[in-house]
């Protein structure tokens, strides 16, 4: 329950920058998620906060106190590991008591706190079991109880759901989030799963190649992605690539002239969210761009249907329509019209990205 500040935190291994100038300010009680593909530096950053990795430069402050040079055991952070890391030779109760014992909390008080922590995760009835006697989901909750029992200043979650199966993952997400809100504990979670990040976070940090690409709310990232990478990584997009032709106009690789809501110059990429692309039998009125195209592929995704429309040999967009009962869907090979509004989601082409 403390503010967490990272100031230009960096970690280099030889020539390799695992983290570069990561600056974050996590408010008391905030749930911050570090999101990115593997190798983006999110785990290194978390490990620098916990004290397992020594930063090459920069500082870590917890509750205003500079802990950059403190060893892990003097930092009072509660870390939930990806593999839970429960002590196999100790019972559930002894696992949860470990942090209290290290803090020399009196036996009676510790016992009460252990029970409280286990009640939080509804596992107090399993207090005398050994970890191997528990299911994966139960182990995960014991790990959470253990990290919370000694009231850490900051809760750190390292891909805590990645070892759970899909259905359970959905439930545990909601559980962790509501527990975090109830306790009002400052939390940093690391994940590569954007859906997990979007559902749980107060605020998200998208990282790549060790650096922060964008910080913001779900809405910020989705509606106003900072660059090509974020537009691709958060949410689904189809991309048109081309060259800026004039004021707020892009000429696509296939020769279409597309209006957008931002002026740039040079090679550019436009990101289109599939639900903002409308499909119809006639040219779409009321949209800044409307083009005819041929339906190439229709993908039935349950509640959603994706319609892939080819506008030119080089240009393809995906339109998403909700799967309503009587929707008369176009078939593969049909000619349809698609339309979308001029968008500010136009970025200089990122050479590292697939178009």
């Amino acid at each position, binding site marked *: 329950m403390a503010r967490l500040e990272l100031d230009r935190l960096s970690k280099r291994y030889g020539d390799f920058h695992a983290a570069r100038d990561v600056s974050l300010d996590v408010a008391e009680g905030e749930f911050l998620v570090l999101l990115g593909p593997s190798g983006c530096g999110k785990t290194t950053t978390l490990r620098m906060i916990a004290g397992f990795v020594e930063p090459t430069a920069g500082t870590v402050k917890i509750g205003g106190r500079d802990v950059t040079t403190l060893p892990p055991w003097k930092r009072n952070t509660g870390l939930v*590991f990806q*593999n839970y890391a429960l*002590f196999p030779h100790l019972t559930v109760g002894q696992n949860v008591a470990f942090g209290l014992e290290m803090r020399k909390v009196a036996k009676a008080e510790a016992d009460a706190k252990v029970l409280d922590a286990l009640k939080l995760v509804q596992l107090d009835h399993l207090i005398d079991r050994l970890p191997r006697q528990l299911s994966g989901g139960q182990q995960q909750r014991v790990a959470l109880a*253990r990290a919370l029992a000694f009231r850490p200043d900051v809760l750190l979650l390292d891909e805590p759901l990645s070892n759970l199966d899909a259905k359970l993952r959905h439930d545990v997400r909601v559980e962790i989030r509501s527990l975090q809100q109830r306790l009002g504990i400052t939390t940093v979670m690391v994940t590569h799963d954007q859906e997990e990040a979007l559902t749980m976070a107060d605020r998200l940090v998208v990282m790549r190649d060790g650096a922060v690409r964008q910080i913001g709310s779900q809405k910020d990232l989705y509606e106003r992605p900072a660059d090509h990478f974020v537009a691709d990584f958060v949410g689904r997009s189809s991309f048109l690539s081309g060259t800026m032709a004039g004021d707020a106009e892009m000429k696509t690789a296939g020769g279409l002239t597309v209006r957008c809501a931002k002026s740039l110059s040079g090679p550019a990429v436009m990101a289109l969210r599939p639900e903002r692309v409308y499909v119809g039998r006639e040219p779409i009125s009321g949209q800044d761009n409307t083009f005819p195209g041929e339906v190439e592929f229709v993908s039935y995704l349950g509640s959603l249907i994706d319609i892939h429309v080819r506008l030119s040999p080089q240009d393809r967009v995906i339109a998403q329509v909700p799967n309503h009962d009587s929707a008369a869907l176009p078939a593969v090979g049909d000619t349809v019209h698609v339309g979308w509004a001029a968008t500010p989601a136009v970025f200089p082409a990122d050479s590292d990205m697939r178009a």
Partner: protein
Amino acid sequence: MTGAAVTHTGKAARPGFRLRPGRWALKAAALVAFIYILTPLIFITWLSFYSQEIPSYPPQGYTLRWYGQAIGNQRFIDAFVISAQVGILATLIGLVIALPASLGLARLRFFGRGAVNNLLLMPLIVPGIVLGFAIYVMLVEVAIRFEWNMLNSFGGLVFGHVLLVVPWMVRLIMASLAGFDRTLEEAAMNLGANRLTTFRRVTMPGILPGIVAGSMFGFVASFGNLELSLFLVGPGRTTLPIAILQYLQWKIDPTIAAISVLQIIIIAVAMLITDRFVKLSRVV
């Protein structure tokens, strides 16, 4: 939950069907190996109950007399005590050396690590007589140079036996360390345990199987060693294998069979007890 059960059952059945001829051949081979190793032990056990003094066939009857003779023989008792003392001391000293050395070898990267690792294997495979002579020479040189005579002393014997114990321990502790999940240590540190507490409370319990098995094997290797001891025992300080050898030079009767059987039983019991705590087949 059901999921786990299914997968396991599925895996247990892996070898599939129509493999039965192959399976029987493999079982037969395991049986041959088993019999090969078991047969000498059965013969020596059988002999230890023969009533006649000179091994011959058929036995003229059975007796427990040789066990009485073996247990009652003061030379054997003294030798047994010496062997046990040397083995225990060597194991304890070996543990003090091998535990940190294993941690260092398993966890740190440093120049010459591979060489150290392979060198620690050498006492397992350098002929005992070579190793024994090498230690003998060293003690002679030390005695001449520093006038510190460890030769034929109890200390010299223990010193030599530590050399037998350490490789076993290092191997088995390193095997345990390889299977130990290091995030457990990070978890302990995150919960407030410093390095020492982490080692005591988390690492030690995790590698205990390797420590127990390493100590057991180290002790047994020391207890049964003949070659090293040949060079290092002093007058009136004979280990059990040497006492047996000396007895055999004098006469061959079922007493030696009896004392052999007793040793095999003691070692087998030690193995079974160890096996209760540590699955030997997994760690050795």
